[in-house]
């Protein structure tokens, strides 16, 4: 049976906590970064940049894992 690739990625129904796990983690990193920068200059600033850079790098990961239109890849999956 031919299954479309993205349907294969469809997971079982997840709990609310599970769905919000990553958003909450990212929110905590963001807020910690925002507050860290307020505490002082120097090391706290560096900490703020690192904490805030983590959520910003997530799209790069998601982009490499995106589902794209690619006949070759679809074939590989079907085989």
């Amino acid at each position, binding site marked *: 049976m031919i299954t479309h690739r993205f349907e294969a*990625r*469809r997971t079982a129904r997840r709990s609310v906590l599970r769905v919000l*796990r990553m958003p909450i983690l990212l929110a905590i990193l963001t807020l910690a970064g925002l507050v860290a920068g307020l505490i002082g*200059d120097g090391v706290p600033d560096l900490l703020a940049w690192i904490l805030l850079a983590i959520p*910003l790098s997530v799209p790069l990961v998601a982009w490499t894992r*995106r*589902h*794209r239109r690619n006949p070759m890849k679809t074939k590989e999956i079907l085989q």
Partner: protein
Amino acid sequence: MRRSTIKAWFLIHKWSSLVCTLFLFLLCVTGLPLIFHDEIDAAFGEDYEATLTGPASAQDGVPLDTMLSLAAEQRPGEVPLFMAFSQDSPLLTITTGPAPDAAESEMTLLFFDRATGEPLGPAPSGGIMDLILDLHIDLLMGQWGMWFLGAMGVLFVVALVSGLVLYVPFMRRLAFGTLRLDRNERVGRLDTHNFFGVLILAWALVVGLTGVINAYADPLTESWRDGELARMTERYGDAAPVPPEAYGSLDAAMASAKVGLPNRSPQFIAFPGGAWSTGHHYAVFFQGDRPLTRDLLTPALIDAETSELVASAEMPVINQALMMSKPLHFGDYGGLPLKLIWAVLDIATIYVLWTGILLWFRRRPGRIERRIEEIRRGGFSAASA
């Protein structure tokens, strides 16, 4: 989540977003250059903070009374309204106006080098950055514009919260970060809108809420002046305001203030009769020494005639919250890297607004049920579910 619950949140998200989107676009677009206003001002104008050498004007230099008389020479017939200090350079600014309660539009900002006592002329104004700033603050419509944008900020916060609520049923069967760009345009757009929306959520909430607080700053300052400040200076009661010609020595006033609040650095002095003082006092505002407390001001009230300390007190909690919220809105407290992060998040916000508009505009005609179904099924069509 029940269908009716999703429907209610969908309608909240749709309308709160639609109403504020246009103004949020404007705020994001004007906000972008404002993040870098220090760098832009320094590049296009005289960067006194960097070029003047000598002790910081907040600490030392030519006597304040001398500086004040220099300002009076430049603006004859006007009265001093504010004197502001720099923590890093000898740059000192004096604001003058035709009357103690002059409106902001009538004020003139003068630059001075406190190390040498040299006047540096009036602050450049009317540039493109000023226009951008005014658009960002009040749409060039004064107090009402400011309150209007504050209301748009409230709607933005509502849109963010309702968006998060809708994120849950949509993502129930999808892994975090799923970007289905291989299917039809709409599914890909739903995914990017949800993904980037949830990514910027915490930052957008902070900047949105602090923006709202800033929009209502003037009434808060007013209530501090009419409440707390009036109580601190009760014994002056209804006495006639001190006329400018009777103002006592500013250097003596600063010395008295430093006795009241030792080991702190002054940020500015508010002259009698303005929004930040009473009719009888110099209010010397001291600042904290960290980014966190840099905008946290504590005033010392000085009798404007005798230059003696009357009272000093922390500002009320609500006003402190207002002051602390400023850096969190501007993103100017962690060097250039933080500003760049602010800019990236700002652009990401524009992108979320844009995908949101497209989701609304480029929808297939149909009843609301189709939208609800889309959210319930995480963008999967009914046939494949």
